[in-house]
């Protein structure tokens, strides 16, 4: 099995990279919608 792993190390690393990308897709937090009220413009007068 180790020789098979060593022989296929490049495609296996590609699979691991796909896993990292999928992990980022799955676990990264979506951008939070803005919840704060917009700052009110102060009246200069």
């Amino acid at each position, binding site marked *: 099995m180790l*020789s098979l792993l060593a022989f296929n190390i490049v495609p296996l690393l*590609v*699979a691991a*990279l*796909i896993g*990292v990308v*999928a992990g980022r897709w799955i*676990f990264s937090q979506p951008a939070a919608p803005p919840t704060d009220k917009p700052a009110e413009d102060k009246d200069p007068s």
Partner: protein
Amino acid sequence: MHGPMSRWTKASIGLAVALAAGWIAHGPIGRGAAFVDRTEAYARAEVAAAGLPGVQVGLGRDPLSRTAFLSGPANDFQREGNGWEVGLNGRVGGAPGVAAVSWDPAARAVPLIAETLALTAFFYLIGLGVGWVFFRPRRQGFL
């Protein structure tokens, strides 16, 4: 309309992409056949070193496998060896890449594609774990 995809759906899509990449490397690119060719050459060198005329070895081809199929005239001692001397089974079984040895051409062998895809899925899961470590949601600090 459609809600956000669940984590399991995303993980399944990623796994399918990784397995497709593993299959492309194994089949169309030819890594599977190249591995079997190389392993078969090692097994043949072991049989040649044993010096038994008429004994032949070949790896599974349909489907590709890591099982070495031996054939030819060899008695039990030549096949199994004894406590001091390794027989053909031990020699060929010790060749790099050989997973099993059989004298039965109809014996079942684990297809190489199954082993390759299992390894691919394992590496995908490792990558997924790395992705979780670096991209998981973190609690906000209290300071």
